[in-house]
C-alpha cells in the first residue's frame, strides 16, 4: 500500500470520519509536495504519523466540560513502613469516576507499594483507604502465565470474574483490538514481545469492567504507536466514567491528567 493509503487507513481505524481522513491525507501529501519530498521522508511511517496527528487533534480540540462521578478511591493520611524504614507517610488522594490520577516519584519512593495498597494486596501501616469494590490491577511486569495463550488468559480471568467462556473470549478480543492487537490462538505468552505482553496485562486488568483501574507503568515495551493508543485508551476509560490511577515516570504524560501525586515530595 502507498503511504497516503496506509495513512488514511490508520486514520479510519482510529475513528476519524472517511471524509475527514481523506481530507487530512490529501493535505498531508500536498504539504510534502510543497517541500518536494515524499511524505515518508518528512512525516516518517504513515501509521505512526496518523496516530500522532489524531492525538494532536484530540489535544487541541476544545475540551468539553467533563462531569466527574462519585468518589471511587480515597486515601487519607496513608503511610507505609517496612521494619524501621519509612517508605512514605501521610499520603492523601481522592479520585472520582471520570478522573485520571498519576503517581510520580523517584525510583524506590513507593509508587508500586502505594498502588498495591490501593488494590488491597498490601496493607497500609497508617491512614485509611476507601475504595470501590470493582477494581482492576495492571502490574509493571509479570502477572501472566508464560505457557498459556492470550485466549486462555481471557478464559482464566473471565472465570475468576464469573464470566462465561464465550463472553470472556469476545470481550478480551474486543479490548485487544482497541490496543491495535489481535491475539493469535496458538501463540503462548512467552512468545509475545514485552510490549504485547503488557497489552495482554492491560486487557486482563479491564476484562471484568472494573470501576477503578490501577496501572503500574503499564506501557513498558510499547512502541510509540502503542504508547499513544494506550493514552487514548486511558482517556476513553475516563470518558466512560471510570477512575484511573497510573504510576508513571514520564512527566509529559501529566499534561492531561486530573491529579498528580508526587511521592518524592
Amino acid at each position: 500500500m502507498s503511504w497516503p493509503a496506509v495513512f488514511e487507513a490508520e486514520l479510519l481505524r482510529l475513528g476519524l470520519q472517511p471524509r475527514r481522513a481523506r481530507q487530512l491525507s490529501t493535505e498531508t501529501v500536498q504539504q510534502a509536495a510543497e517541500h518536494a519530498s515524499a511524505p515518508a521522508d518528512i512525516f516518517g511511517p504513515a501509521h505512526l504519523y496518523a496516530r500522532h496527528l489524531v492525538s494532536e487533534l484530540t489535544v487541541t480540540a476544545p475540551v468539553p466540560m467533563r462531569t466527574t462521578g462519585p468518589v471511587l478511591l480515597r486515601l487519607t493520611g496513608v503511610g507505609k513502613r517496612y521494619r524501621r524504614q519509612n517508605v512514605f507517610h501521610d499520603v492523601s488522594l481522592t479520585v472520582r469516576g471520570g478522573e485520571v490520577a498519576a503517581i510520580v516519584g523517584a525510583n524506590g519512593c513507593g509508587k508500586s507499594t502505594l498502588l498495591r495498597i490501593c488494590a488491597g494486596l498490601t496493607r497500609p501501616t497508617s491512614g485509611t483507604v476507601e475504595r470501590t469494590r470493582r477494581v482492576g490491577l495492571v502490574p509493571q511486569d509479570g502477572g501472566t502465565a508464560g505457557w498459556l495463550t492470550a485466549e486462555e488468559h481471557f478464559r482464566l480471568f473471565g472465570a475468576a470474574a464469573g464470566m462465561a467462556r464465550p463472553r470472556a473470549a469476545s470481550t478480551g478480543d474486543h479490548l485487544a483490538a482497541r490496543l491495535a492487537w489481535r491475539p493469535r490462538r496458538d501463540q503462548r505468552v512467552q512468545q509475545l514481545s514485552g510490549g504485547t505482553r503488557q497489552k495482554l496485562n492491560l486487557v486482563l486488568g479491564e476484562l471484568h469492567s472494573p470501576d477503578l483501574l490501577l496501572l503500574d507503568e503499564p506501557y513498558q515495551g510499547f512502541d510509540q504507536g502503542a504508547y499513544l493508543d494506550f493514552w487514548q485508551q486511558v482517556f476513553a476509560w475516563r470518558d466512560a466514567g471510570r477512575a484511573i490511577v497510573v504510576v508513571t515516570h514520564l512527566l509529559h504524560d501529566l499534561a492531561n491528567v486530573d491529579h498528580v501525586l508526587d511521592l518524592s515530595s
Partner: protein
Amino acid sequence: MTALVVASLSAREVGRRRLALALMVSLPLWFYLVRHAQAGSSIRMLTLGIGWAISTLTLFVVNASRTVDPRLRLTGASVLGIVGGRLLAMTGVGLALATGYGLLAVVDQKPLHPWSVMLMMVVTAIVAAPLGSLIGAVLPRELEGAFALFSFSAVQMLADPGQLVAKLLPFWSSREIGNYAIDGGSTDLIWRGLAHGAAVWVICTAGTVGFFAWRLRLARYPEPRP
C-alpha cells in the same frame, strides 16, 4: 467453576512443557530400574520416585503462578477455587502416572497382592500433590522448595522403618500398604496406610489453603463516602 478452569489450564500448561513432562515421567523409572532385581525394593523405590516427581511438579506449578494468583483474587476468584483447581489438576496428572507405573510393576514383578500395589501407587500420587503444594506455599521460591522436597525424599529413603521418624514422613502410608502388597500379612497394614495417607492429605491440603488464604488475603476497604 473457577476451580475447573484453573484445573484444566494448569493441566494444559504442564502438558505443553514436553521436556519437563518427559523428565518427570521418567524419574520413577530410574528408581525402579536401579532396584529391578529386588522385587519388593524396586516397587517401594518406584513409589518414592512417583511421590518425588508429582510433588516437585506441583511445587513448580504453584511457584510459577505466584504473580498470577493475586490478580485472580482481585478479579474475584476464591482461594479455594485457585488452590483446589491446581490440586485437582496435579492429582489427575499424578493418578495417570501412578496407574501407568502400577500396571508396569504388577505385570513385571507379579506381586503377592496386585490390587494393593495399585492402591499404593494411587495413595502416593494423592498425597504427593498437596505435599508439593504445601511446600510451594511455605517456600515460595523454586530453589528453596526443591531443596525441602529433596530433604523429605532423602530422609524417606534412608530412614529406618522401625523408627518414629519414618512414621512421621509423608509417604509412610505407601510403605505400609507396600508391606502388605509385597510381603503379605494383615490387612491392618492397608488400613493403617490409608489412615496415614488421609491424615497427611488433610494436613497438607489444609496447610496449603491456610497459607494461600494468608498470602492472598485482600484488605477489606469500605466503599468511599460521597
